[in-house]
């Protein structure tokens, strides 16, 4: 096995660049397997690589009471030995097949990804099947992985950016499952037993609600055959009830978390716009102009370029199944952070009151249309782009329609989105550090 792989690797590396045709817009095919598993496929023969991105319905918000963190922990442990292979033997088989497989969990979904050389696809899909259907979930692996998660939780409590993010989420989602850390809490993790893991693995991996995207050196018939081999043995599984609806906090506030660091880290949150809301595209454009676009956004220009108040400042729309946020982050020296926050709030007001210029609208349009191609960085990144479209419930031809949806947004739509989102009274500002001139309060 090892020697054969060597021969093949060297042969592939000696080939000159393959002249695959330029994919002007990526061509997404739909595959339905004999067992009824549905997948999206972008066939691309330019490198001998296949990438998979897939997920199951139900995520960390389905953690049982007293076992918070178990979904993410179980997901991480799926590749620590499976079937007749103990941990080290399983890792070795993955390595000998030049295959990487990993699992993780977010609030709403348990997700997996795999990447392998197309010549090793039989072995890769076998290992994937074993990880999902016969994970060993042994006490020793549990002991070690739990220690890693607890260590990461401990360290996150000291890292200013993590403290800011965690405080922001806990406050925006107080009383809702999204307010908890997906990685769980120490006391619950300490109580987890191997049987808990086994129960969790069975409950969280089922074919109902399964979403799969594949990209690379594989055709539809072969993908269908392999998907049935890997995912076919999973139980049909039922969709777990979604997390409860979320009601945003009625009022914003400012919270200071004291930490002995020279630079204060800031996270600002506002309720956002759902993905299927008519204001989604206006909000998308608003975010780009304000702080989403990198080195030409208003926040970058005002906070960094003109005032030198920060190295990084940006905003983003974050969407969950039952909630949406608009988040702005930055970091600035303790003595100047209040000016950075004032400047950001000033930009919120300017956008709310003055809207955007025709030039900004035109620039945002060309960037957001043209930049889609930038996410076609590798087979894995294309697979995760497809997968996120599937999660958002978009059709496979969305990439063709997207440009029209962006072009249809007018300046007044963007201002309407700004008035809806950038509300001063709803703004949560979390500052971690020793900020001067900033205090906890309403």
């Amino acid at each position, binding site marked *: 096995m*090892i*020697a054969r*792989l*060597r021969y093949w*690797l*060297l042969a*592939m*590396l000696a080939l*000159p*660049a393959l*002249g*695959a*045709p*330029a*994919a002007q817009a990526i061509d997404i095919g739909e595959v339905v397997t004999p067992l009824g598993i549905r997948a999206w496929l972008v066939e*691309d023969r330019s490198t*001998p*690589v296949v990438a998979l991105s897939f997920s199951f319905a139900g995520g960390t918000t389905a953690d049982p009471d007293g076992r918070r963190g178990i979904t993410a922990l179980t997901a991480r442990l799926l590749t620590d030995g499976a079937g007749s292979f103990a941990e080290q033997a399983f*890792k070795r088989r993955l390595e*000998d097949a*030049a295959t990487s497989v990993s699992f993780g969990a977010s609030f709403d979904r348990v997700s997996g990804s795999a*990447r392998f*050389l197309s010549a090793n696809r039989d072995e890769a899909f076998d290992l994937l099947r074993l990880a999902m259907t016969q994970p060993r979930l042994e006490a020793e692996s549990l002991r*070690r992985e739990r*220690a890693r998660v*607890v*260590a990461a939780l401990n*360290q996150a409590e*000291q*890292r200013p950016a993590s403290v800011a993010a965690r405080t922001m989420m806990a406050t925006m989602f107080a009383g809702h499952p999204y307010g908890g850390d997906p990685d769980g809490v120490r006391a619950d993790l300490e109580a987890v037993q191997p049987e808990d893991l086994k129960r969790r693995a069975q409950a969280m991996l089922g074919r109902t609600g399964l979403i799969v995207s594949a990209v690379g050196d594989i055709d539809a018939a072969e993908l269908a055959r392999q998907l049935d081999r890997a995912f076919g043995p999973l139980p049909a599984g039922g969709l777990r009830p979604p997390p409860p609806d979320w009601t945003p906090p009625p009022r914003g506030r400012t919270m200071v978390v*004291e930490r*002995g*660091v*020279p*630079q204060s880290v800031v996270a600002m949150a506002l309720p956002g716009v759902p993905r299927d809301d008519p204001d989604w595209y206006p909000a998308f454009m608003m975010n780009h102009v304000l702080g989403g676009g*990198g*080195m*030409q956004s208003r926040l970058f220009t005002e906070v*960094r*370029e*003109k*005032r*030198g*108040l920060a*190295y*990084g400042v940006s905003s983003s729309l974050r969407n969950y199944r039952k909630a949406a946020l608009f988040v702005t982050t930055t*970091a600035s*020296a303790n003595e100047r952070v209040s000016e950075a926050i004032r400047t950001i709030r000033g930009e919120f007001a300017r956008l709310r009151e003055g809207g955007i210029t025709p030039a900004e609208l035109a*620039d945002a349009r*060309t*960037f957001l*249309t*043209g*930049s889609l*191609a*930038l996410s*076609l*960085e*590798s087979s*894995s990144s294309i697979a995760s782009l497809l997968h996120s479209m599937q999660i958002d419930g978009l059709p496979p031809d969305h990439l063709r329609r997207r440009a029209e949806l962006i072009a249809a947004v007018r300046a007044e739509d963007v201002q309407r989105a700004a008035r809806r989102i950038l509300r001063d009274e709803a703004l949560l500002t979390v500052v971690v550090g020793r900020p001067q001139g900033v205090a906890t309060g309403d």
Partner: protein
Amino acid sequence: MVAPRPAETFTLANGLQVAVLPSRRAPLVAQYLVYRVGGADDTPGLSGIAHFLEHMMFKGTPQVAAGEFSRTVARHGGRDNAFTSFDATGYHQTIASDRLELVMRMEADRMANLRIVEKEVTTEREVVLEERRTRVDNVPAAILQEQVREALYGRGRPYGVPLSGLPDEIRRTNVPELEAFYRRNYAPNNAVLVIAGDTTADAVRKLADRYYGPIPPRRVEPRRRPAEPGSGLPQRLTHADPRVAEPRWARDWIAPSRRAGETRHADALTVLGTLLGGGETSRLWSALVLDKRLALATSAGYSALPLGLSSFGVDVQPAPRVAIADVETAVDAELKRLLDGGVTASELERAQNRLLAQAIFAQDSFSSGPRIYGSALAGGTSIAEIEGWPTRIAAVTPAQVLDAARHVFRADRSVISLLQPAGVGR
């Protein structure tokens, strides 16, 4: 280094080296212009000036106003950024392939016509200081890492000085110094241009001739790199910080690179790094994480790319309630086992396969190729050396790995460092 696909290469009359990596996978091109100057070339007493100048490169020319470079790239649906390492400073854009001419025109413009003005320097200095706070002062591991480099390479010497600069020296860096640094180092004969994506060598040659071709070469001083390690080795450093919750133990040895020291060991050290610390089947992981339960994670790192001496590092995240001395003893025992018993043919082969597979996965990534070629060429590696990498890695023998390990793992050329929690004062 991981070799990507073969490049087509040529050199312009003014000395600009060009490599083209055609790929028709997506209608995109990437331009990487990498200068053969980095943090290790900082003006003495003005640490961070190479990095500071990288920031100023976005502040305009008579043709392109401050900030307009990035705005223009974005307006055409592209993205741009830049990086500074110890040996190189690179500027790159990724954009629709029919916009290559646009980004080439602007990149060539700022190679020759950068305008550095007081007002912009004053504001950007604050940004550079904030970047240092974000990357170093707020990150205990990064503070310790600066101390480790200073011990390995020597205080005030190339590679021993912080890349982002010392705050006092950043504050002293002014317009005339930045201008002088720019004039000394930014020239076509001191740069490498790599274009990857949906284009051809012929098309690139035509555009490069038009935009970079007219820029005259300059006389460039030879680069100085340490041929000897720092004078105070071995050293043991501890950084205790209330912001550290979990300890980390590391040991770094001075090591040859492909360009400096006993360069014949470079490929064997690359393989050794993977065999010893690459992933969860490596020797250190098996011994410290699985068998002895002393660690939660282990890794090893080595790069053959530096222009001067490199380093070989081993990093351990100790398990809870484990004595650091036991971690150190266990790492020593693994190194002794390696030095006494050598490596087996099959573990060597696994490590080599792992590296070769990484090379194939690098071919699957749009940005890997130009990044690897740009950095390697700017650090003095030749095209033949980059492209011969898979063959050389596959040819490394157990005896060469042992030889390289004996050369590197010498107590008198290492720094042991410990990052640990301190006090409770928040």
